[in-house]
């Protein structure tokens, strides 16, 4: 099953997104939070993200959902530091809605590209119509 890593400046945001994902996709035990700094502060840490990606990978690859700014940049650094044999993609999607789509796709057996596509379907979806 494709793993999912949620990257946010805030540990609480990342954990909260994981919590909501698991409500829909409890079968995926590889949805992990990589939020905040080691000391509990606000920020992102490429090494924490790297560890989370390694832990989330079961061999089917890992989709990363990140918030703004350094969320994306630290995720990119983390991916560059990984061994080449882990397939990883960052979804170009809003972190919460994208993660929900990714989580559901992962438990229905989608491959990494399918999970990323599901996450990116959240772009441009109207909440009010």
């Amino acid at each position: 099953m494709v793993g999912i890593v949620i990257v946010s400046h805030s540990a609480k945001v990342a954990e909260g997104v994981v919590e909501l994902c698991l409500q829909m996709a409890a079968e995926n035990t590889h949805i992990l939070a990589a939020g905040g700094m080691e000391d509990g502060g606000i920020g992102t840490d490429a090494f924490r993200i790297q560890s989370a990606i390694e832990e989330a990978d079961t061999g089917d690859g890992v989709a990363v959902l990140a918030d703004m700014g350094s969320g994306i940049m630290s995720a990119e650094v983390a991916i560059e530091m990984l061994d080449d044999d882990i397939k990883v993609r960052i979804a170009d999607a809003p972190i919460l809605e994208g993660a929900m789509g990714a989580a559901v796709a992962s438990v229905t057996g989608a491959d990494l590209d399918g999970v990323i596509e599901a996450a990116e379907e959240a772009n441009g979806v109207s909440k009010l119509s």
Partner: protein
Amino acid sequence: MATKIYECIELIGNRIIEQKDFLTDLDREIGDADHGVNMARGFTEVLAQIPQDNENIGEVLKKTGMILLSKVGGASGPLYGTAYMQAGKVCAGKTTLAPEDGNAIFEAVVAGIQKRGKAVKGEKTMLDAIIPAGDAYKAAIESGASAGDALDAACKAAEEGVEYTKTIAATKGRASYLGERSIGHQDPGATSATVTLEAIRDFVKG
């Protein structure tokens, strides 16, 4: 005795830590009020962790970059982290640097930051200080200037770059949420880049 590269990074770190409140205040105007705090936290760790006796400039710069990646927290973490690691690659195995090496370092740092931040000159970022600084350094070296004098020219260009950031709107980073309202404020990243260059200049000129 501490190596020259340690002393240079120590001076950069101390200047950044001294400017913590100023950098954070600049970031409060147009960002998330953490630039000085984040950079100071990163360099406090750098000064505690990098070896004082390793003469291999490439290794010390790489280690500095790795610590910044992990400990800064904001966008300046991956940006400065990448910058130091790219500089480290240029200096791999070196224990001394010639004035011309500065050109290769500027080029690698600019390329690394551009790739990481997907920014170009004119977007109110640290590149608006570093790119003109690198150009000025190169021009000075080509006309026969010493490293110290070339760094003087680089710092002057970087300061002008910081002034230029006051005249433009941010399109990258947290300040881009403010758009036109960011005009009139200098960019904190361009400012910390200039603080860094001035520390290097002061170290080289002794």
